């Protein structure tokens, strides 16, 4: 076992975790190499590269001079310097106890070795960027139980990655639940999909959730007390006909007519609550449905469970997400449901760093307790620094794609101790669909070319110029038609 071709040799000072090398060939960043020393064969990753020529130094100020020098030197005399992060012995991935000595040869890692490291999981997401022959397969157990964060700027390929993972989970007869903020996934073409309308049966809501939808403010104590009484009465099987909401309204009206209310402010309060409940009924007509089955009963194992939140407002989305998360955690505790993987798109909206939401509370709880009960979280976001740090740091797995803003990069680095400075520096130069995968779901960090999901995700880049053209054409046609009509009219008159 000697591995692939020699691409360089170690120079300067090395540590057990890192070594510098020079090379005549051009390796690529993210490429895997092996170094043999002290009876060990250690895997490493090329993290940074510098290329130069002593003949064309940085102090030249005239481009013609460079042209002339190149004429004599050709491409000869160039050097490549780089740094290798040592990832561990190829056998057990243990970091060596001693640094590689200067002069240690840096060899390209062979395909077979790489396959043993990267292709043993059960969720294929793509291939190694540096070696398309090596599949990258994630460990599904680790991915679900230790949570996943997918972070990248908009358009870098987060939704595509989600789709690839979801499709693989379907094959594994898993239970992915997608909170689809932009209605992208329902018609994405998963082999099995269960579209779930975001309808809630108010009977199943907690008072806190209900209160939020009815929009009773934090400081409206009297309103809150009145609403709570009516809500509890309706819930505890209040006699009489009518739906849950009708029962609440009836209860409130009874109260308004009774003699109990003395002060004007109490009278105002009850009128206000009644108005709010009626507004709520109008606002969420069709969404809050007293005949809807429990939303969790609709979930299907072996399908992509897509909860379409594209047309609901943020408050409603917050309630529905927190509701489902809460119930999922509960049902897993009682063993009434298969392990689930909850994918939260736009996680920075549902679990923002700076303000509390219902969802944030439950996202955070699942992040902490989900592992024990088999509830996995997948947080998808283009603004990591606006995302709740607690939940993010509980995600032991990360797929990071192109990220440009330094503050976002630092934020990600803080929550993932495995992301070295050199890898961090790569984030802004990743192309669409290229990612760094970190965490327990892979044995070692990998630079991956994610597969292109074959179906069609709606969220993909829209064809703007095409749409302009179409609309312009339509307008021209309309004008023409009008003109024709007018001429028609005149000729008829004459």
């Amino acid at each position: 076992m000697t591995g692939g071709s020699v691409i360089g040799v170690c120079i300067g000072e090395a540590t057990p975790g890192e070594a510098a090398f020079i090379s005549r060939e051009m390796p690529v960043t993210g490429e895997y190499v092996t170094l043999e020393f002290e009876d060990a064969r250690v895997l490493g990753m090329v993290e940074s590269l510098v290329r130069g020529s002593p003949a064309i130094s940085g102090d030249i100020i005239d481009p013609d001079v460079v042209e002339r020098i190149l004429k004599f030197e050709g491409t000869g005399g160039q050097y490549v310097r780089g740094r290798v992060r040592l990832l561990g012995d190829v056998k057990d991935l243990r970091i060596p106890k001693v640094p590689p000595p200067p002069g240690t040869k840096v060899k390209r890692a062979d395909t077979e070795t790489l396959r043993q490291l990267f292709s043993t999981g059960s969720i294929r997401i793509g291939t190694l960027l540096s070696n398309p022959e090596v599949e990258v397969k994630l460990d599904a157990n680790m991915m679900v139980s230790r949570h996943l964060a997918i972070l990248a700027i908009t358009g870098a390929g987060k939704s595509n990655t989600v789709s690839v993972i979801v499709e693989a989970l379907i094959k594994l007869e898993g239970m992915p639940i997608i909170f689809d903020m932009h209605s992208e996934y329902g018609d994405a073409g998963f082999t099995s999909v269960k579209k779930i309308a975001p309808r809630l049966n108010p009977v199943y809501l907690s008072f806190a959730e209900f209160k939020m939808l009815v929009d009773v403010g934090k400081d409206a104590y009297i309103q809150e007390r009145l609403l709570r009484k009516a809500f509890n009465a309706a819930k505890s099987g209040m006699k009489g006909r009518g739906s849950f909401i009708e029962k609440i309204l009836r209860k409130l009206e009874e109260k308004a007519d009774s003699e109990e209310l003395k002060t004007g402010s109490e009278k105002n309060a009850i009128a206000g609550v009644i108005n709010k409940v009626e507004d709520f009924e109008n606002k969420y007509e069709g969404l809050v449905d007293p005949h809807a089955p429990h939303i969790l009963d609709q979930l299907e194992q072996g399908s992509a469970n897509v909860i379409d939140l594209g047309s609901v407002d943020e408050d409603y989305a917050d309630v529905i997400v927190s509701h489902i998360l809460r119930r999922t955690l509960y049902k897993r505790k009682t063993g009434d449901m298969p392990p689930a993987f909850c994918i939260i798109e736009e996680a920075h909206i549902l679990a923002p760093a700076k303000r509390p939401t219902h969802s944030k509370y439950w996202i955070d709880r699942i992040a902490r307790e989900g592992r024990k009960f088999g509830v996995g979280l997948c947080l998808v976001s283009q603004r990591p620094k606006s995302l709740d740090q607690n939940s993010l740091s509980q995600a032991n797995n990360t797929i990071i794609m192109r990220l440009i803003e330094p503050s976002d990069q630092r934020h990600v680095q803080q929550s993932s101790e495995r992301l070295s400075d050199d890898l961090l520096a790569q984030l802004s130069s990743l192309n669409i669909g290229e990612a760094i995968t970190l965490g327990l779901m892979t044995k070692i960090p990998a630079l991956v070319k994610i597969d292109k999901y074959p179906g069609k995700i709606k969220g993909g880049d829209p064809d703007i110029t095409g749409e302009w053209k179409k609309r312009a054409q339509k307008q021209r046609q309309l004008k023409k038609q009008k003109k024709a009509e007018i001429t028609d009219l005149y000729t008829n008159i004459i």
Partner: protein
Amino acid sequence: MLDLTYEVLARDKSGIQKRVSELLDRSIVKDYRARWNSVCFKPSPSVVGAEDGSINHKRYKNLVIYAVNATAHVYDGDIRSASSADVGVLYPYFQIEERLHLYRAIYEFKCALEVIDSVDLFLVDGSMISDLNAFRRLSQGVSKEQREEVFALLPMLEQAEGVEIASIELSRRLGPDGYREKLVFLEYLEYLTTLEKLLSRGLDKLVGISKLSTRSRLGTGVPDLAVFEEATSQAGYSDPETDVVTRRFPVYDELFRSLVFTISSIRLEDGKDVYMLEVPREIDKSQLIELLERISYTSVDGYPYLLKKAHKEVTITNREMKNLIAGLGIVAKTGREVLK
């Protein structure tokens, strides 16, 4: 530096400024424009070689460690090279500065000899006239008998091959009487022997190029190079002059003194620096132009690229010297420790 220096500067500032502006006054040098021949050189292909060398050293109380590098490049469509390097102990502790220069020169000439037969043109950094005039002191203090003893080794010097300094090995044959002086004389003879080989094999190929020639024949009080640098800006050359070496040499005296050198200040590209060119033969203006066009062929930014390349590669920095010493593992006193 003493703080006093600032005081002196403050006191004499205006005087110094006045003197500087006097010296930089272009009107003095305007008259010399007439001696400049503006030409736009059309590069003409030829096989060009060039060499450079460098030496660095570290002094200890009783010994000197030196490192020397020399390299010669040839461009014939590709760049080919001949290089040599040496690290050694200079012994005995005598005439140090000059001998180190002499060592470097020997290495340079020997590298040049490796490639001179394969080129049309060979560029050396500096002036051959200065090379001939240099190191005179090294032949002093040797008696007639001692000289004879050294001359007996001359055939072996002449036959020595390779780029090493042959004198170091040959010095074992010298008797103890006046050993230091005899050794230094032997080294000097090796220098002249090598220079003679280079001159006779490269008489029609050698070209010296100096960046900082102090030659000053115009009588302006500043180097001629500086005069033309100030007075002109176009590519071209100054009216060529000739020169000879008049001193006597312990060996090859007739050859050296029969050489006629042609010297001219030159600028290869408009607006670039002026250099001093020197060839060990008599040439007229048209031959000079032809020569400059061939030099232009491998020049970048108005300077021969191979010379620049060689210089960049051989330079031994003080830091590198420190690394070399560290590699030797020597613990010795420089005598400067007390100053720290």
